[in-house]
């Protein structure tokens, strides 16, 4: 059976190696687009295993990044390739550098954004698909872009997504709404760690307790059945 499975995987490599879930596609968008400005300060490369990435893919992804590694004997800063146990972190070395590169604004960290953003994922997707060209005569503050989802109709983030901007490995058509929804799925996964395991464990625990409650109900009834006199 196992050999059959491996053989089928080799016969149809698209199933084995290529993105297929929204979260996996969202990771592709993150790697190619978002991660040039936004950080994932609390998610490690190894955590991506939960999305179905193989160990070798994770190692290869981590190894692409050089991270600070203290000082060498001459006092010069050293770097090393990241390990899977390192956090994905920020593309910038400091918050100050991040601000300098982004007109003074700090691109928010992605780790818990799904949770801390008012309106959650739906709001983030809404912002991503609401860039249009401003109506004539509309004056925008310098360094900001027209976005109909924002209360004041402008946002500091340049439009990050464009149709056909990336190439999905599973062949999905990379339209802006498609990429926005995939990024949303990825952020949702990052913002609620171990949600699937949580629900699976929860179902087991609840059924166990429900059955135990049934037994205890019968036990209690049988024990108290001896007390027939009316209660005071």
């Amino acid at each position, binding site marked *: 059976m196992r050999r059959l499975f491996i053989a089928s995987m080799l016969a149809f490599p698209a199933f084995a190696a290529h993105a297929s879930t929204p979260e996996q596609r969202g990771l592709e968008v993150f790697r190619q687009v978002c991660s040039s400005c936004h950080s994932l300060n609390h998610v490690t490369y190894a955590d991506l295993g939960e999305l179905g990435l193989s160990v070798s893919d994770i190692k290869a992804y981590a190894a692409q990044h050089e991270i600070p590694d203290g000082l060498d004997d001459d006092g010069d800063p050293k770097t090393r390739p990241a390990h899977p146990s390192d956090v994905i972190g920020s593309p910038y070395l400091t918050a100050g550098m991040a601000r300098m590169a982004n007109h003074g604004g700090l691109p928010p960290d992605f780790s818990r954004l799904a*949770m801390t953003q008012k309106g959650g994922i739906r709001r983030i997707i809404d912002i991503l698909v609401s860039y249009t060209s401003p109506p004539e005569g509309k004056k925008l503050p310098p360094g900001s872009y027209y976005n109909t989802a924002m209360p004041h109709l402008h946002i500091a983030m340049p439009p990050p997504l464009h149709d056909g901007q990336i190439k999905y490995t599973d062949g999905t058509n990379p339209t802006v709404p498609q990429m926005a929804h995939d990024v949303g799925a990825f952020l949702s996964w990052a913002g609620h760690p171990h949600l699937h395991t949580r629900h699976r464990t929860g179902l087991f625990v609840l059924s166990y307790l429900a059955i135990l409650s049934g037994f205890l109900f019968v036990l209690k009834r049988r024990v108290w059945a001896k007390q027939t006199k009316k209660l005071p």
Partner: protein
Amino acid sequence: MTERPQSVSTWLNTRLPILSAFRREYVEFSMPRNLNYLWNFGAFAVVSLTLLILSGIFLALNYTPTLADAFSSVETIDRQVASGWLIRSVHMGGVSMLFAALYVHIARSLYYGSYKAPRELVWLTGLGLLLLVMITAFAGYVLPWGQMSYWGATVVVNAVNTVPLVGKPLASWLLGGEGLGNVALHRLFVLHFVTAFSIIGVIVLHVATLHVTGSNNPTGKDLTEPDQTVPFHPYYTTKDGLGLCLFLLVYAALIFFAPDFLTLSDNYVQANPLITPSDITPEWYFAPFYAILRAVPSKLGGLILATGSIVILFALPWLDSSTIRSARFRPWLRVALPLLFLAFLALGLAGMSPPSPFWLWISRAAVAYWYVYFLGLLPMIARREQASRRKEHF
């Protein structure tokens, strides 16, 4: 000549009679037969506290009490530590379950007069436990060093600062002089531990005083006839067991399917002293007291009324001079006391809502009723009851 070989239990019991004490207090212990399910909530509180302490030990193993690492160490627990998410959820959900159990437990005491003679010490140790639990919960909430941790602590520190003469020195002495910094965070971590473990000691006192007088019951009358009582085991072990299982069902539903329901998402943003959140909201269990703080225009006045609302409970056994315990036989109290519960709930809702004139006046009315009840209504009702009792005697 050697002695006859003894069983291990006899050997142990003749040297340290814990087995016979356990049998006396938890197997044969005589309990009123008519306790309803509200009498389960003490057991619920003990079980949630046990789970809190056990999960807390494992969290402490992975937590770093420094400004630089506190937030990310909690994230690491939630993400990378094996089963860390589960242990942290048990701990976070446990606080809410403990407070819920305690509030019901206290409300039951108020309704059935369990605070009255001869159980005054049960009541006083219980209130001491409530205070300790509150201090522990406050200190614990600061530890993840999110926005609400920081700003919630700021509200409390500011409140302490308003106390004349002692306030400022006390606050700077407790926080180590540099405000809410590294030293303060480390101290709050230690305080969280110390108070958590001292709770166990006070529980022993609480239960010991209870076992001297025995449990009250819904009638409030002393039940001593043999057919009015049952042994603790198997009657209340099974009844508590069933209740406990249902309690755990709610607890589990909460932590597995609604983990974000009882926590504020703002606390997943790292503390930033430069950005005040748009509205600082406490966890639901502190909301009634926060509402009192907010309802009073003067900071010091708010602090006095908020702490006073609990302090006044310590005087309760002496404010209520009626010899009738259960509200079942106190028609006036059956109206006045549910209104008190309503006032507490209203304060809770007010504390969780953004401050608006509507909620402000609701909380003012509620806090006024709280004090009127304990200082005016209850003593008056008690006096009337005693007077009519004396009339019956003539």
